[in-house]
């Protein structure tokens, strides 16, 4: 086993797939010669050739459209959109084309594109380098939506995404590229090398899409979350001193309802946490699903902790970020209610 941070794990996943499958190609802005602004594709062009790892024009619509055409012609494209905040020029190609091609041709044409894109805040990126737009994509039928929370899952999920035959939008919480950030920017950064899930096999392995993970077993309440917030939730549990179970959703669409609801039915209390804005957010889907399946087991109203419903403000990042204090407060609230 090797020690990897999340960037290295993602790089390793692409490296493994480029070597295993001649159909795999990587494309995106700065991904080739330079190796990507977050270094996720570092060394891949040198190793696999400039026809396999392509630099592209600054044109997200063009990148996604070209990837679709490549997929139709038998390749397995992995497109990088440099920041999730930049994905919107390619949105029509995702919604109207990538997600619909199999359906509208009754399976005669398909395009197994994986779109990787860094998301989330906490890096002083302001409103154009901090967004978490996963809910916008989970509302689109015909694509899978994934967000890992650690290097092991990042590699295993990305390999599953590339090997699968469905289009996948793969969100990478950039704040945890280098370490399991728990929401407190004043503490010294913790590297992935100190975390058990920073141990990642060097070769091929998969983590299945559509399966959530119980990252912390507990009995008092359930926190359902994903991405960076998994680590924030862990800090909140320690802070509140409440034995909560933490579920990492990992694949937002399609959702692993059974794992979520088994936990909430057991604990009877639920907090849903995401970094994205609250209103119309993915948390609403989680809450609706939980109440539908666990209503008679619930001891308290479900709480949601999310980003405020404003754009991500550059100067007030930590007032905006739904940190451990807010999650702990929500936990206490579900414990108090009866």
């Amino acid at each position, binding site marked *: 086993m090797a020690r990897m941070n999340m960037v290295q794990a993602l790089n390793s996943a692409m490296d493994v797939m480029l070597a295993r499958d001649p159909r795999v190609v990587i494309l995106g802005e700065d991904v080739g010669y330079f190796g990507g602004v977050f270094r996720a594709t570092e060394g891949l062009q040198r190793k696999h050739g400039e026809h396999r790892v392509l630099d592209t024009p600054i044109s997200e619509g063009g990148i996604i*459209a070209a990837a679709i055409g490549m997929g*139709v012609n038998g*390749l397995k494209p992995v497109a990088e959109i440099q920041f999730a905040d930049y994905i919107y020029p390619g949105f029509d190609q995702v919604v109207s084309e990538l997600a619909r091609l199999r359906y509208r041709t009754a399976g005669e044409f398909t395009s197994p594109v994986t779109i990787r894109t860094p998301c989330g805040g906490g890096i002083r990126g302001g409103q154009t380098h901090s967004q978490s737009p996963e809910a916008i994509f989970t509302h689109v039928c015909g694509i899978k939506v994934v967000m890992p929370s650690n290097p092991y899952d990042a590699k295993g999920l990305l390999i599953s995404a590339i090997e699968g035959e469905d289009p996948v939008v793969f969100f990478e919480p950039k704040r945890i590229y280098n370490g399991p950030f728990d929401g407190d920017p004043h503490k010294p950064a913790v590297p992935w090398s100190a975390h058990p899930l920073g141990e990642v096999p060097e070769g091929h392995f998969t983590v299945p899409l559509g399966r959530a993970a119980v990252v912390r077993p507990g009995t008092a309440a359930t926190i359902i979350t994903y991405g960076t917030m998994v680590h924030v939730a862990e800090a909140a549990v320690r802070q509140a001193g409440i034995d909560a179970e933490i579920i990492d959703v990992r694949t937002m669409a399609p959702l692993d309802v059974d794992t979520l609801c088994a936990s909430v039915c057991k604990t009877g209390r639920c907090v849903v946490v995401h970094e994205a804005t609250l209103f119309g957010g993915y948390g609403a889907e989680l809450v609706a699903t939980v109440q539908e399946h666990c209503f008679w087991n619930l001891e308290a109203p479900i709480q949601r902790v999310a980003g405020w419903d404003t754009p991500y403000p550059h100067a007030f990042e930590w007032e905006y970020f739904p940190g451990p204090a807010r999650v702990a407060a929500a936990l206490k609230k579900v414990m108090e209610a009866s």
Partner: protein
Amino acid sequence: MTPRSRLHVPSPPARPGQEPDFSYLSLSAAGAVHRPEFTAPAGDIEDLSKELVRVLGDDHLAVGPWNPHLEPAELQVGLRHMLLTRLFDDRMQKIQRQGRISFYIKSTGEEAVAVAAGMALQPGDMLVPSYRQQGLHVVRGRDLVELMCQCLSNTRDMCKGRQMPIMYHWGSGNIFSISGNLATQYPQAVGWAMAAAIKGEDHIAASWIGEGSSAEADFHHAMTFAAVYQAPVILNLVNNQWAISTFQGFAGGERRTFAQRGPGYGIPGIRVDGNDFLAVHAVTQWAAQRARQGGGATLIEHVTYRVAAHSTSDDPSRYRPKEEWKAWPLGDPVARLKAHLVALGEWSEERHAKLEKELEAHVTACWKKAESFGTLAGGPSLDPLTMFDDVLKEIPEHLVKQREELRALQTAGAIGAAPAHARQD
């Protein structure tokens, strides 16, 4: 007076009640435009984007360097394909008017743009059309019954009832799926071509877009990617003068030709008489050879005229002179190819009338057969439960659940009542 800024709102030369006026079109004489080597650098042949490549002269004979010298037998096949496309369109339009299909789009007057181009390409080339190139299916020998069944959303519908009429696709025939979102196919075709080059294959892609939808960002994405990677792709831009009610000036055609956009990206732009079967064939062949041998993309502007309405949902007499098509200076592609064959002594009015009759009978027979597989109003149709298939490769749990909900509603008789024809007893 101090000069002030002024908003220019383009206005077509003629609206309903006015005299048609095509004086804005710049035309070259047949045979007048030079034909460069297909290896010519884009920068050396920019004049082709302003001129108009034409082969058929007023005397109906082929002239000049772009004459593709096709055998009469091949020209007869081309005529047959165009005529069949037209008769198919006419029939489907009537059927829509009778309420038997929900929608239709004719290609009347533009048949050469699909048929001649399609015939100049190879079977392994991927065709990525917009919604007005049904002629491509005809060229590649598609059974019209399949197209009709799609329009009927019946039990044999290739789209399984999921798409409006005319949104065809054909996997084994290498004709890509038509999207209702305009221009999206253009950069996809470039991606397909890039993949062919990555794999070291000989096939090229050809795509079609209207002049109206060339205003979409996807046009620019396609041109940029095609230029940057020298992708083996032919980018056809069908300038049929009208985008529903807005004339070509509203897509940016007032001061520059659409073909002139090519050189701006470093891609050859060729403006061709889109109603001249021979010219379209020749220009396509040139661009295909260039693409196949590593020369990259070509933008071809086909100057043509949309004789019919945009679709069955609009009435062109509300926005353009009713008889405008009669004034169109480039004539009709079917009539012109027919006249050429007659001039060559390879065709006659009698043969033409006979062919027309034969093709009409063929379309009628196809329609009868298509209807036997069901109609939209009268059924039978596919099981509505198939709507849950093909969203993803494997049906996910939540869709299994939703499918069972619908099944339960059907079983209870609450929804999905039997089609009208079955309820008459």
